[in-house]
């Protein structure tokens, strides 16, 4: 081992001080520019924060990959879900005419939308891929209305940073940041491949977030809350996924 010289001690000290100061500055900048995910704590926090920050710096405005009609999967796979709740079965028996989507939280005009209200908003279609964290995938055409339009209707307040969304099924909820909520490919989906969205694929209403893995595209949406912080939702980790051990940001 070579002996440590005074110069090495001094430069080492300066480097360490600069490093600590640099990290502190980086952390406060990251917080300010929304680069810290809600599940940033714990052993996997550093990796998760690097992933989310890198994605936000590099991919925020990128459009989702779209595919030609010829690539639509002939046999898409409807992943299994828990048995439908009583509330779902009641609404299903009435042909979903009483299905409501309520939007509240940091909005100027909290509102409740029926499916026909949502259908009267501008309708868009996208041919995008559902990719599951398990590894499988399929392509389908998804028809619905961009979430950005609905958020525009209710008037999102400027301090809003996240949209939390809930399934009618118990304990199934997710959230996305405003970059994904306002992204033109984030749809409240009611149709699939030129027909109504089948129940197996999330009908009557599914939020499609095509730039993230399938588990962010929650089925059977009935409620949304706009917020500036995820601390008071569930265990404060962002959504049900991190509470079950899965990453909040599912862009990778």
């Amino acid at each position, binding site marked *: 081992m070579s*002996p440590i010289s005074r110069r090495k001690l001094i430069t080492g000290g300066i480097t360490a001080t600069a490093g600590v100061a640099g990290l502190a500055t980086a952390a406060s900048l990251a917080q300010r520019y929304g680069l810290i995910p809600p599940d940033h704590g714990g052993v996997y926090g550093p*990796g998760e924060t690097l992933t989310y920050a890198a994605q936000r710096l590099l991919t925020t405005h990128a459009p989702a990959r779209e595919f030609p009609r010829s690539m639509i999967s002939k046999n898409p*796979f409807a992943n299994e879900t828990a048995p439908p709740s009583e509330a779902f079965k009641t609404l299903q028996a009435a042909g979903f005419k009483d299905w409501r989507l309520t939007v509240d939280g940091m909005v100027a005009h909290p509102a409740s939308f029926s499916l026909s209200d949502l259908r009267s908003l501008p309708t868009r279609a996208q041919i995008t891929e559902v990719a599951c964290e398990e590894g499988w995938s399929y392509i389908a055409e998804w028809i619905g209305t961009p979430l950005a339009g609905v958020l525009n209707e209710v008037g999102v307040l400027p301090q809003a940073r996240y949209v939390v969304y809930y399934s009618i099924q118990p304990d199934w909820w997710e959230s996305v940041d405003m970059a994904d909520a306002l992204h033109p490919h984030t749809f409240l989906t009611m149709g699939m491949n030129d027909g109504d969205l089948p129940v197996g694929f999330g009908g009557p209403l599914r939020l499609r977030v095509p730039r993230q893995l399938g588990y962010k595209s929650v089925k059977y949406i009935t409620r949304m809350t706009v917020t500036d912080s995820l601390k008071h939702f569930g265990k404060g980790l962002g959504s049900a996924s991190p509470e079950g051990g899965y990453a909040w940001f599912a862009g990778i």
Partner: protein
Amino acid sequence: MLPAMSATVPRPEPETPVRAEPRHSALVRVTHWLTVVAFLALLITGGEIVISHPRFYWGEVGNVMTRPLFTIPIPSSRDTVPTGYKYVMPDQNGWSRYLHFEAAWVAVLTGLVYLIYGLWGRHFGNNLLPEKGERSWGGFGRAFWRVIAKYLRRGPPDAAEARSYNIVQRTAYLTVIFVLFPLIIWTGLAMSPAFTAAVPESVILLGGRQTARTLHFFISGLLLLFLIVHVTMIAMAGFWTRMRAMITGRGVADPEEKE
């Protein structure tokens, strides 16, 4: 014990042998072991993730409704996957995915430090690129087969190998560093829906998301093969001497340490 100040250390007499350069530089040693930790974490968690869908496809899409390219005959952690087994493995994907990407960051950042050092500090030029007489195809081939033949008859290593790598080692390390590592990163990123949204060419050039996944699996297999051969060769060459060289830097060429 406090180390002495450098100014107080007497210069060695010309006759006494100057202390040998470390067998591996400190940066190579540190990045090597960080890569070992990250790679093992990636290998284990990658395996865990595969268990949730041990079927592989070619092209853009693939799922249990489509024909696989091949399947691995193991039980799955999802009851939606037909495996032939009557039981379902526990789901380990949550922490596996968290750790997979965290370890990937460690591997990539370590790799970047190593790359900058290797180019700047001439590590690649001195230790990894073929030596002068071995840079033509003919010279490379002759040297390569000579080393292979010596391995096969379990001959002793050349004196130069105590200080640097032979041509077979150089070829293997260059392949891992400049072919397999870039490919495993590329095929991994090609599975990210957010990254491929920003850089669609990353997946289009490979031929689709499922192709990327299948290639990622094969390349990790090649990296595992390298790991097995690498550890085997080290065991045959003298496990503890080589381990010590990669941990403390003290090489087999040190005068006080004869093999």
